[in-house]
């Protein structure tokens, strides 16, 4: 117990730096991912064949390859091209955002399609354009419906950020590795790292529950 306390006091500040990085990457990536998902979902539902096709194959490509391959492709692959260069944090954010975006796209599409077509007809019959109908009538209802699935995907994306430690991003896992190497207290460090992730994800779940209650469909 004394040893645990000692490891805890020494490692904790470093782990908190890592946590900060994890949260920073997660927040930016999830917002970007949501925007990507919304755009791809709308392309997917568009009557224009070619846009449809692009959206479908974007989703297929992301779903059909492992996250780690996407990460290596973007960080090592794209970076090896002469005309483009970015650091590991950027590569990490972009990968998580694109990856989440593909899954969000399917969630958003399903949400939009679950809204009764009478809603669209009522809005259009009042003179609203199709984009006004989407913005004021369909999406607000669809978002409420997809909140639980959305939370699920966000949690998966949060866990995916831990893989960014492989390309040297100083996130919570990478800090854990450094601390383990320095102290040899693997059991204590990884236990603490696990608890930190758990708390973070638990808070995310609480936030989602709160939003669900707040925006309950009447």
């Amino acid at each position, binding site marked *: 117990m004394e040893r645990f306390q000692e490891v805890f006091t020494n490692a904790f500040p470093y782990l908190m730096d890592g946590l900060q990085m994890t949260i920073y990457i997660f927040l930016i990536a999830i917002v970007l991912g949501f925007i990507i998902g919304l755009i791809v979902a709308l392309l997917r539902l568009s009557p224009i064949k070619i846009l449809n096709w692009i959206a479908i194959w974007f989703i297929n490509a992301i779903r059909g390859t492992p996250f780690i391959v996407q990460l290596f492709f973007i960080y090592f692959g794209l970076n090896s091209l002469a005309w483009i260069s970015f650091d590991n944090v950027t590569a990490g954010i972009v990968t998580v955002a694109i990856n989440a975006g593909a899954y969000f796209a399917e969630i958003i599409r399903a949400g939009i399609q679950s809204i009764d077509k009478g809603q669209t007809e*009522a809005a259009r*019959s009042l003179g609203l354009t199709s984009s*006004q109908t989407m913005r004021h009538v369909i999406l607000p209802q669809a978002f409420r419906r997809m909140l639980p699935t959305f939370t699920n995907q966000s949690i998966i994306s949060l866990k995916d950020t831990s893989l960014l430690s492989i390309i040297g991003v100083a996130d919570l896992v990478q800090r854990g590795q450094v601390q383990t190497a320095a102290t040899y207290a693997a059991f204590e460090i990884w236990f603490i790292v696990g608890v930190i992730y758990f708390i973070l994800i638990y808070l995310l779940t609480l936030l989602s529950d709160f939003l669900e209650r707040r925006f309950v469909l009447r």
Partner: protein
Amino acid sequence: MSIIQVKNLKKSFGDLEVLKDINVVIEEQEVLCVIGPSGSGKSTFLRCLNRLEDITDGQVIVDGNDITSKKTNINKVRENVGMVFQQFNLFPHKSVLENVLLAPMKVSKKNKEEAKAKALALLDKVGLKEKAESYPGELSGGQKQRVAIARALAMDPKIMLFDEPTSALDPEMVGDVLEVMKQLALEGMTMVVVTHEMGFAREVGDRVIFMDGGYIVEENEPNALFGNPQEERTQAFLSKVL
């Protein structure tokens, strides 16, 4: 000029021809009731009048606009054509007042105060002013339908289309909705009403159309059509529903 002119209207869903050759002219301030068995095409006919259904062939002219033409801005035409649906189709995430306010504010870009005063007056007219802050889920079917009528009226339409407005209602709710519609008719609104309420068609309608199999089988003023139907199919239908 007649406010609605329908010429040789045809509508198919794939191989299924639902409207075969519809010709009808509707005058301003007229109340036209459309009756007929289910599957006769009467709802599809109504939905062609504001192009909720793509028109396969023929011409539909609404308030001087040829809505079959691709060049016509259908959104502009729809601003003048209100529609009330069998399933109400209120927006469940918006309060009653917000339902009524949405189109005036987003489509007509009215300022909030002006639009709100008008919306409350309309809700008062349909007897639901005190429900302004309620949500659709908290209302009965009859109340929902009256809100839907107020929502359509908020755009000051010249024409109102009703698609079996009382068919999804409990019997005791039907009267309130019909009363509101009757009031509208008395005020001179041009109305096209697809209905199974023969009493309403007879009392409020200026003219009744009987449809079957994608055709207009018979059309006449209500007393003549209900009292002395000429066509065999009309007689058969009326003998079942009256």
